[in-house]
């Protein structure tokens, strides 16, 4: 097993090379390539079709989100975080709002927490659906993409009805919520849960038992639990390697402690396990949503937060379980209305570091599958 601490980019162990090797070639994959999910550039060193090493070149989507935070008030910065992981904007907002709330030492009211849980879990399903569609498309199955996008549309409709935006929702505010639920929100969510359950079975029917799918994903991009922990990988990628680590359970935030759900883990840490883990996660999210909708209390949706947010001098780190893994916000306050420094720990960026050890010794086609299975969003990697 490769010790992740000793890996340096393109440090290739070349054993005896009896011949003058004319087959080694360097291929540039991306930044414009159908399978890199945005503007990731991967430099591949190949021996024929075998991957000897990779190097990721990132930054094509860098917008300086963390720097922008230093010139905005706490409230003004809130919408910016939606632009990081734009397919899971609600989770981003939740992490930021809770971090600031922690800094201010206020607590969102219970009704707001329930709403937050429902919306983030819906968003988790939407994010996983988008991942599934594009991942399957990379491996060559066209149809799941259209199925998942059809069903993701229903979630986006609920978001739109709730806050007027579909993708970058800006659903939460520091201290709670801006908007009360619209009439029929609960019914919409319940309908969606009933609607999507058979649809998830449908995706699984297309892929789970499919011989070609199994051959393309089993034992591809394997990462051991030790390597995964050493590299700081989180989220479904970590859980697929067999580590039962989910911040919703380990360090409950919002009111996740109230809900009953399971944390799926895999065994081999290969692409197939990651697929299975995410599929189960979608079902578990539905379970959480069902419980939350059933138990949503009446009451205020906004805590008492001053008009001008001016936290005391101090620093805070708060992390949540975003669809892609641990999303953390480290905020330093100098007592002014603007944060002194905001540092985001994006799950995609950290997970992407595992790409190299996952694809070494695999074939080019597997690189595509592994990039898909890591579920990266370049907006979050580059920030």
């Amino acid at each position, binding site marked *: 097993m490769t010790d992740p601490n000793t890996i340096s980019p393109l440090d290739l162990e070349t054993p005896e090379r009896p*011949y*003058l*090797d*004319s087959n080694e070639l360097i291929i540039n994959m991306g930044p414009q390539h159908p399978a890199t999910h945005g503007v990731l550039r991967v430099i591949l060193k190949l021996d024929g079709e075998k991957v000897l090493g990779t190097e990721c070149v990132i930054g094509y989507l860098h917008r300086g989100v963390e720097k922008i935070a230093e010139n905005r008030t706490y409230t003004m910065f809130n919408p910016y975080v939606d632009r990081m992981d734009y397919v899971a904007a609600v989770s981003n907002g939740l992490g930021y709002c809770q971090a600031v709330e922690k800094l201010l030492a206020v607590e969102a009211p219970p009704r707001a927490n329930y709403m937050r849980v429902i919306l983030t879990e819906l968003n988790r399903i939407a994010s996983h659906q988008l991942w599934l569609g594009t991942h399957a498309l990379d491996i060559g199955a066209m149809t799941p993409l259209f199925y998942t996008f059809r069903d993701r549309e229903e979630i986006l409709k609920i978001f739109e009805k709730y806050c007027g935006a579909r993708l970058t929702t800006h659903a939460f505010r520091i201290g709670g919520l801006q908007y009360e639920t619209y009439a029929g929100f609960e019914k919409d969510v319940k309908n969606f849960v009933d609607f999507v359950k058979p649809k998830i079975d449908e995706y699984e029917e297309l892929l789970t038992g499919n011989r070609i799918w199994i051959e393309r994903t089993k034992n591809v991009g394997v990462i051991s639990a030790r390597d995964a922990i050493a590299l700081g990988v989180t989220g479904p990628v970590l859980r697929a390697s067999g580590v039962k680590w989910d911040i919703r359970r380990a360090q409950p935030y919002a009111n996740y402690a109230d809900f009953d759900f399971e944390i799926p883990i895999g065994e081999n840490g290969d692409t197939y396990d990651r697929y299975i883990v995410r599929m189960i996660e979608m079902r578990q999210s539905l379970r959480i949503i069902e419980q939350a909708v059933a138990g949503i209390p009446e009451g205020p949706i906004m805590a008492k937060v001053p008009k001008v947010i001016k936290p005391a001098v101090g620093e805070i780190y708060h992390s949540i379980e975003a669809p892609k893994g641990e999303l953390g916000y480290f905020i330093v306050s100098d007592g002014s209305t603007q944060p002194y420094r905001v540092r985001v720990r994006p799950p995609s960026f950290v997970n992407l570091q595992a790409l190299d050890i996952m694809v070494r010794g695999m074939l080019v086609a597997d690189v595509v599958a592994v990039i898909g299975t890591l579920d990266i969003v370049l907006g979050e990697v580059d920030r």
Partner: protein
Amino acid sequence: MADIGTLHYLVVAAALFVLGVIGVLTRRNVVIVLMSIELILNAVNLNLVAFSRMWGNLHGQVFSIFIVVDAAAEAAVGLGILIAFFRNKETINVDEIDLLKW
């Protein structure tokens, strides 16, 4: 125009044969030398089939099939050697392949 007899085919075959021999004797590129050998084998085949037609039996055709098999084997091995050689010396010129031992 006169009837086309066996001799016509023999002349065509002779021309192809000689073209192949010229290729083998003068070209430097191993791939083209191998192709010239294929030309020679084809000329032989044409002769065999023409004679088979002339005598009215099929022995010639059967032999030509054997020669096709032989050509396939020869091409596979020849090109295998070529690839191994190219990997070692990065050249495919016959006159640079002059070491008996590497």
